[in-house]
């Protein structure tokens, strides 16, 4: 029996040693987890910040939901989510939320002979296609606004995300705003009950399917349509103008939002006013605890995010994200002053 005990003890010692070394998040290094949508930018920033300050930022792209769960459990220093949390939820868990980057979701398609930016769609047609009511590409509604295009007499193959994602949340939030029928039947969510179509895993999965399947339509984050050179559509915005997705049309959507008046910066940038606004724009958010364990942690967090706002813009733009307007940054920095120590 003695030998049993000794072996068990050794095993426990080994286990607890392993946990101790792994669990330490002390010092200036920071850990974060969450949204995959901004991951390319966040990992670039982490690299650049480490080069400059020798401080390590460890960001795991595990999905917004897991990021929110982890920051609530305090297993990370910051969480990241594409879906802004409601103020009640922030209050309940003592969290502070602020926007870090913006980006756009674009509608992409594969119709032989039609190039990027040539196909125009209205909100009604998009919701019609994704609820499977508009079935063919030569549907008279589509032909009416695209009189010069040669649209095929083929069935539309719709492709959506298979995994839960912030991109889907932004897209379905847009559809719910522009179509009461969509709102009633399907609604807004990171995963929804799609009336039809097949699901691809991740932005890259949807992109791969669109490229491969003729007469298909889907939605991806803007950068993926550029990187994979998949044609995107123009979309008619709230002001009735057909706009092209680009950094400037994303920025236009953000400029018209009322950041000051919205508690928790819970601004959803879909279907915004403004002639140049891209209708399916979204922001991605950072979550931190309002009460931090010590002053050092507050300093480490705020100096990192301050650096991101001030120096991260260039590399974010290269990855086709849009940095936050300086007016918003000032509001966020003001809110950081309310962070307290236990």
């Amino acid at each position, binding site marked *: 029996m003695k030998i049993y005990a000794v072996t*068990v003890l050794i095993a426990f010692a080994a286990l607890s040693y392993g946990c101790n070394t792994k669990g330490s998040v002390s010092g200036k290094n920071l850990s974060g987890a969450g949204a995959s949508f901004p991951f390319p930018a966040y990992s670039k920033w982490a690299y650049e910040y480490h080069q400059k300050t020798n401080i390590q930022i460890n960001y795991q792209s595990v999905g917004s939901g897991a990021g929110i769960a982890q920051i*609530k459990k305090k297993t990370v220093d910051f969480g990241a989510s594409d879906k802004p949390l409601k103020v009640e939820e922030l209050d309940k868990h003592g969290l502070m939320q602020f926007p870090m980057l913006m980006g756009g979701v674009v509608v992409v398609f594969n119709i032989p002979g039609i190039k990027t930016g040539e196909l125009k769609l209205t909100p009604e047609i998009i919701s019609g296609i994704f609820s499977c009511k508009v079935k063919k590409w030569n549907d008279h509604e589509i032909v009416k606004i695209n009189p010069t295009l040669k649209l095929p007499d083929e069935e539309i193959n719709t492709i959506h995300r298979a995994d*839960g994602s912030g991109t889907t949340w932004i897209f379905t939030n847009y559809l719910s705003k522009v179509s009461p029928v969509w709102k009633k039947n399907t609604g807004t969510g990171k995963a929804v*009950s799609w009336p*039809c179509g*097949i*699901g691809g895993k991740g932005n890259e999965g949807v992109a791969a*399917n669109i490229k491969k399947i003729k007469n*298909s339509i889907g939605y991806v984050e803007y950068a993926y349509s550029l990187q994979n050179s998949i044609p995107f559509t123009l979309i008619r915005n709230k002001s009735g103008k057909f706009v092209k997705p680009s950094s400037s049309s994303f920025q236009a959507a953000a400029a018209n939002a009322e950041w000051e008046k919205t508690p928790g910066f819970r601004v959803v940038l879909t279907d915004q006013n403004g002639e140049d606004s891209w209708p399916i724009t979204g922001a991605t958010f950072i979550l931190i605890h309002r009460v931090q364990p010590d002053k050092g942690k507050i300093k480490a967090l705020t100096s990192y995010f301050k650096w991101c706002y001030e120096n991260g813009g260039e590399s974010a733009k290269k990855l086709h994200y849009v940095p936050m307007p300086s007016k918003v940054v000032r509001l966020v920095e003001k809110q950081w002053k309310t962070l307290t120590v236990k």
Partner: protein
Amino acid sequence: MPKIKSDKIFHSITALSGIFILTVLAGIFIILIISSFQSFSRFGFGFLFSADWNPVQGNFGAASSIFGTLVSTVIALLIALPLSIMIALFLVEYSPPILSTSVGFAIELLAAIPSIVYGMWGLFVLAPFLEKNIIPAFQNIKFLWFVFGGKVIGGQGVFTAGVILSVMIIPYITSVMRDVFKMVNPVLKESGFGMGATRWEVTRDITLVASLRGLVGATFLGLGRAVGETMAVTFVIGNGHNFTTEIFREGNTIASTLANDFGEAADQPLFYGVLMELALILFAITIIMQLASNWWIQRIAKKSGALN
């Protein structure tokens, strides 16, 4: 004395290893039960039979996932089982030794390919191929519209998942069958030949009959692997939550649903519970299959005791 001491140490190490694996299994089971409590108290046993899947409204049912899992597995077995038996018979009975070694090696290599590679191959090669060459032929069988009908997108659906699963389980079934065929008592076969039976007659009436036990074992091994396969299936099954008997349409399996929805469900207690309950169901399906195969093998062992 030292000999006894070392014996004791070794004894405790082996015992600990045994206890360890039992603890892990029990731990997984208990955690799954606790975590799925929320979902179970909300939906009860109706969860198993409801085809609802609406994360926005919080209505969930496992029927489409369970059905997709079973259908894709059955398709996989229908393709893999006859093929594997043929391959194994060829390797043992018919092929020259050099060919037998190299084909055998190639089959075993199939088992070593990571499932993500199968998934990519399925998405980029197999699904378009099936859509163009195989599926249209079936869709012409109009009176079976409820099996072969429906709109096909990119060849992705339950059938394609079944085909890819069949390729993945062929090496498992084949290698077991090969060993089983090798173990058939040569005296039995020789007496068959001695009575003037042809090679085919010996194969049919002696080798196959004597190998029935092994065949069931091999089938369940393949089944176990197919039921839980995740990555390759997620790539080609189309990931739709509709409950349908149309095998060329998009569907989902328990494993693919878990892979897709876990990341974003973590902060929604009900959704999380639902996924945990799905995992529990998958766990139960594998256990039931294991028990059924044990029972079946024992039954057959009693019946065909004379042959072995």
